[in-house]
């Protein structure tokens, strides 16, 4: 074995370090290649991701479109329900107006005979007093025969009823128009109590057979709101309440003003004694497409739309429910800021 000296040790170290350097260089080359490949893969992945992102954007657009279509169909379903209710409300006055007009038409025929006879009596051609007396006698008989006094009284009453019926139809149509013309532009100062009353009136045909309505309305200041959209929201809440009731139903509509930290708000409670909402569903009821109704009965967008409308009014909606006891929806709409915004 060679005796190790300082110079042989240095030479050995040099050789060792040269080998190490070569190893390091090889490793560096391998790593650089791996890095290059990884970089290329990353680039390809980025392209794939961009493509997927684009597809996702298209899907989101498609989804938005579907959502809008479904929202529209929900609106149409609500309008359909309204139309059915309104048709019934209109049919009733139309029924008695038609029957009154038929009676009036009959009465007019009787009156025609009497008028003709009266014309004859007053005619100049009749010179003989005896003939005139005979005609007057016939006129009296005819009047007795058709009960002319009754016809006179009844005609006035029938016409008055027709006017009332026509006015009722006109009011219903006006109310309906205020709902169906719901546009974002219809923001105005509105009386929430009056809006609630209109809503109940429109849905009354659905309500009246199984449910009593109890009113507890406070004096409210007008709020600045989209009457049409808010009306639709109230209608949805009201119809949900109606549908949750099977018999002996009671719906309580309550309004009041509250003031918190100097800010006034209008609070609207719509409570029912229906079957209630299971606790597990409470967190989901405002989610779009969530429904507990039977297939085809609800799109699951009703309460989602209500929440949307309330949020558009800077308000909030809360729900409390107990199974088999009932549900209360509370809508709180801020008053002051919105008014200030509008009036300024």
């Amino acid at each position: 074995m060679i005796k190790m000296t300082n110079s042989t040790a240095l030479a050995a170290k040099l050789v060792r370090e040269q080998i190490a350097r070569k190893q390091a260089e090889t490793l560096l080359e391998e790593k650089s290649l791996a890095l290059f490949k990884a970089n290329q893969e990353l680039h390809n992945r980025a392209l794939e991701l961009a493509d997927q992102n684009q597809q996702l954007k298209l899907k989101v657009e498609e989804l938005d479109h579907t959502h809008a279509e479904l929202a529209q169909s929900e609106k149409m379903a609500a309008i359909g329900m309204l139309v059915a209710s309104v048709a019934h409300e209109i049919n009733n006055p139309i029924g008695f107006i038609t029957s009154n007009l038929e009676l009036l038409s009959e009465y007019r025929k009787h009156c025609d005979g009497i008028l003709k006879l009266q014309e004859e009596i007053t005619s100049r051609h009749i010179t003989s007093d005896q003939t005139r007396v005979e005609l007057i006698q016939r006129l009296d008989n005819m009047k007795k025969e058709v009960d002319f006094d009754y016809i006179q009284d009844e005609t006035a009453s029938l016409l008055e009823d027709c006017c009332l019926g026509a006015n009722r139809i006109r009011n219903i149509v006006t109310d309906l128009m205020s709902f169906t013309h719901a546009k974002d532009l219809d923001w105005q100062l509105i009386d929430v109590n009056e809006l609630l009353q209109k809503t109940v009136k429109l849905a009354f045909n659905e309500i009246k057979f199984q449910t009593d309505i109890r009113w507890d309305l406070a004096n409210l200041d007008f709020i600045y709101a989209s009457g049409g959209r808010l009306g639709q929201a109230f209608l949805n809440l009201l119809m949900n309440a109606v549908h949750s009731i099977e018999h002996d139903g009671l719906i309580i509509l309550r309004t009041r003003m509250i003031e918190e930290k100097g800010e006034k708000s209008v609070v609207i409670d719509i409570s029912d004694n229906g079957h209630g909402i299971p606790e597990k569903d409470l967190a989901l009821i405002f989610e779009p497409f969530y429904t507990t109704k039977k297939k085809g009965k609800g799109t699951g967008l009703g309460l989602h739309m209500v929440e949307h409308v309330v949020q558009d009014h800077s308000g909030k909606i809360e729900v409390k429910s107990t199974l088999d006891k009932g549900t209360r929806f509370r809508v709180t709409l801020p008053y002051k800021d919105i008014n200030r915004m509008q009036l300024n």
Partner: protein
Amino acid sequence: MKGIVFTSFISFLENELGLIETESIIIKADLNSACAYTTVGSYDFKELLHLILLSSQSFKITPKHVSQRFGSYLFTTLTSSSPQYVKNKHSCFELFETINNVIHMEVKSIYPETTPPRVHFKRISSSAATLHYQSHRCLGDVMYGVIEGAGNYFNEKLLIERNRLNKKGSEEVFTVIILQ
């Protein structure tokens, strides 16, 4: 095992025994790698054990004590190559707390093929803690030295007690008490 441990060991030998003795040990060891280590490479840890065993004859101390001395030296090498891990730390406990969840995690993310030892730190009081060491390489003696090195670095006098949990020494609990 990562190359930095091997390059540190060679430089430890050079510092402690001089160049001629170091090269003699390397020739005697006759290892596959020829001890041509780089910090970025990975090598068989058995080469380190062999070098420790051979150098103990030159040191004239037991391999256990060579390992411990090397552990202290390794700590200084590691802190100078990666100063970020000791920056803003004021005590060895603060550093030990980060071994598993920060230091070794970063090492594994840079070198996925490495299997650093698991060192679970548990503070018992402000001046006492345990380090649960687990490694199939059974280098508890080196770990002991690393702990000592940390104490020296932070100027803390440490009392270190070892408790082997198995015969092999792949699992040990170090109880560390800061005396001042």
